[in-house]
């Protein structure tokens, strides 16, 4: 019984490790400029966690195998070094490990959150609501018109609550249900939620940020690969949560300009 158990543990351990080693399921390919450190961080952590996982499971299995049927006349004995040794080991190994991870992690984290967006970053506003994202581009004047929550009406597709008749800045604002951004251009994403908590997650962009009702948050990123990606909501927001997504198209600058013209025409 004990031997079977030991073997089972080892088999399970190895089976669990295989997909990770083969990257059968892994992070989506990175298309952002800041994603590199995050991926490195991920791999390092995976290495360290993986080693500790394999090591401890295998030791567990071996000890079970060995000590569940002691040799005749064998007395119980203690591990050489005893508890102090183990504590020292834990503190030194794990301590060093986590400190290292922590410090490197700061770098990766800082890339996302501690750097201000460049002055020429392109502002895009995203509004989350049950259960769709809507985006707003400032238009030629480069200014976003003020929002009037009391005027929000999905029925007439005035999702941002713009007052185009009275706010000159709103006149040329372009509201879209799909997000498009030019490649290799920093985007300054201004986020707000119209109702409950939502989240903006694009795995390829290495960006996840919650929408917090009552707070205006912002993230900034630069996409380096054209293509059509998906923006999904990761903050439970109600019955349509699973279906709250929008498409993100990363295009060349000229494609983007023509796209924006088309959208402007559709307003």
């Amino acid at each position, binding site marked *: 019984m004990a031997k079977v158990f030991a073997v089972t543990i080892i088999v399970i351990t190895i089976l669990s490790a295989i997909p990770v080693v083969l990257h059968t399921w892994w992070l989506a390919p990175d298309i952002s400029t800041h994603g590199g450190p995050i991926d490195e961080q991920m791999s390092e952590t995976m290495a360290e966690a993986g080693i500790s*996982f394999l090591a401890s499971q295998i030791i567990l299995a071996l000890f079970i195998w060995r000590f569940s049927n002691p040799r005749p006349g064998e007395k119980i*004995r*203690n591990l050489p070094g005893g508890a102090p040794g183990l504590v020292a080991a834990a503190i030194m190994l794990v301590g060093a490990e986590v400190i290292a991870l922590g410090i490197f992690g700061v770098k990766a984290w800082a890339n996302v959150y501690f750097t201000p967006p460049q002055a020429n970053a392109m502002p895009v506003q995203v509004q989350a*609501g049950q259960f769709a994202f809507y985006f707003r581009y400032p238009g030629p004047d480069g200014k976003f018109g003020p929002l009037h929550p009391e005027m929000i009406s999905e029925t007439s597709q005035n999702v941002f609550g713009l007052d185009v008749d009275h706010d000159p800045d709103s006149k040329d604002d372009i509201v879209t249900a799909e997000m498009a951004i030019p490649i290799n251009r920093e985007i300054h994403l201004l986020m707000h939620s119209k*109702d409950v908590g939502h989240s903006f997650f694009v795995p390829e962009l290495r960006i996840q940020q919650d929408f917090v009702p009552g707070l205006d948050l912002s993230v900034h990123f630069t996409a380096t690969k054209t293509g059509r990606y998906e923006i999904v909501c990761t903050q439970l927001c109600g019955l349509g949560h699973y279906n709250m997504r929008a498409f993100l198209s990363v295009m060349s600058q000229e494609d983007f300009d023509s796209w924006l013209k088309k959208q402007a025409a559709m307003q």
Partner: protein
Amino acid sequence: MSFIRKYIFSLDHKVIGKQYYGLALVAALVGMVLSWLMRIHLGWTNFAIPGLHFLSANGAPGNVMTPEFYLQLMTMHATIMVFFVLTTAPFAAFGNYFLPIQVGAEDMPFPHFNMMSFWVTFVGFVVLVASFFVGDGPTLGGWTQYAPLSAVGAIGGPGEGTGVVLWATSIAIFCVGQLLGSLNFITTTLDMRTRGMSLWRLPLTAWGWFITSCMGLTAFAVLMPACILLILDHVAGTSFFVPSNLVISDQLQPHSGGSTLLWQHLFWFFGHPEVYIAIVPGMGIVSHVLITNMRKPMLSHRVLIYSMGALAVLSYMVYGHHMFVSGMNPISSLAFSFPTLLITIPSTIIVLIWLGSLYGAKLRINTATLFALGFISMFISGGVSGFFLAQPSIDIMLHATYFVVGHFHMVMGVAAMFGIFAGTYFWFPKMFGRMMNETLGKVHFWCSFVGTYAIFMPFHYLGMAGNVRRYQAFVVDYMHPFIPVHRFITVAALFTGASQLIFLYNLIHSRFWGVPATDNPWQGTSLEWSTPTTPPPHNNFGDKLPEVYHDPYQYGVESTVGDYVMQASPEKVKSAHEEA
């Protein structure tokens, strides 16, 4: 003593412990069935589950599960499991039964509070389950109930009206019950110890329960006010958690100025300690079971205790790691990240002590031992994934994905469950005077062990691939490839769940027809094995309370009875366990 007084409103901590265990058992079954329904839906979204519409006509028209009903099931599964199983079973149930016995007392100091504690908890459970049958069903807000979705009322979606109010009421009630429980646990440990039972002579289980009750005292005392404020936002129209200018379904909400992060802070200040409230008693039980079956004490009694204490203390400094991407100040994210990484040190120490103590043991393999060892394996597997989630930078990718779900199911769900099972197989003889069936027990163990790995390991892979949690269907294009994996998980889940019925059968069958047990079937040393009868008499030790002469785990020594000396026996031994 009338039947009511003896079995229903009993003041006897042992009866109350059994009542808690029964409650946890029922709750666990309910939670398990809910998870089955969810799993089936995730595997085959449009599959009509026969008879589902009896559970909720609106939620399952034509037996097809609606999105909101999936979320409602999910919320109820989480709430029931976390509060009414993982908190009640290892802590309230076993603690109530064995803490007074292990400290050598006749009962808890406040038996009436103890009784109230159970019945209050019971009412909480009834209120929670009632929400299935009231209005448009239970809340769909998830067990974290993030505001403002949980606070805007019915306009937020089905179950967000009455459902949330019932949920919050139930949890507030539950908090009261656990506070009363903690009061009893702490005073029992501090004041009711018998002659010679110093704090250091308490078994590790008692320490686990003591530390847990200290955590519970602080955590539940914070969750209760949060729930009160949430209820007020609903019924009184206050704006604690709901900010201004929310527009839902084209309707401008009347609230103004509330703070949504406030709820998250209050909730997670409770929420993270809650994780340790679920697992620390399990650690105590597992150590206790292992020591008895290794026939040798842990390498260090005290290091284990200190580490559990460290977990408890640290658990209050780390709650912010649940909110890395919640718009919290990024610097505070780092501030929360480091203690979170540090908390791996005590956890590692505990694991290493367990592994190191296995070395040179005379391991006795029975079902209890198997589950204890399974606990260790699970705790390791679930623990290492904590490395990832502790780092904000990686959390950007893994937050709110199945990786998180896999992590906490393994480390606090399955591990804690294994602790409960280990305790059950270990203490059942003492609680009911009969042995459980070992063969069935082993079958149950194998199914559970392999099954849970089959279920929860894939969760981590899906999470890394970006599979978002709390989705009722995978309509997002990049998630379509995950559906086969989900089907595999579903099958594994149904299988594992079914195998729990073996345990149920074993429990009931052994209770009535099991082999009669001796007073000390496992040759244990702690006081629960020195009771005059099995199960113990009403006052636990008969007319004379035992005197304690030894540290708890005197195994691997020569004595008249064998390789152990009981705490209560005056026999002189060279204790194998003075060095720590």
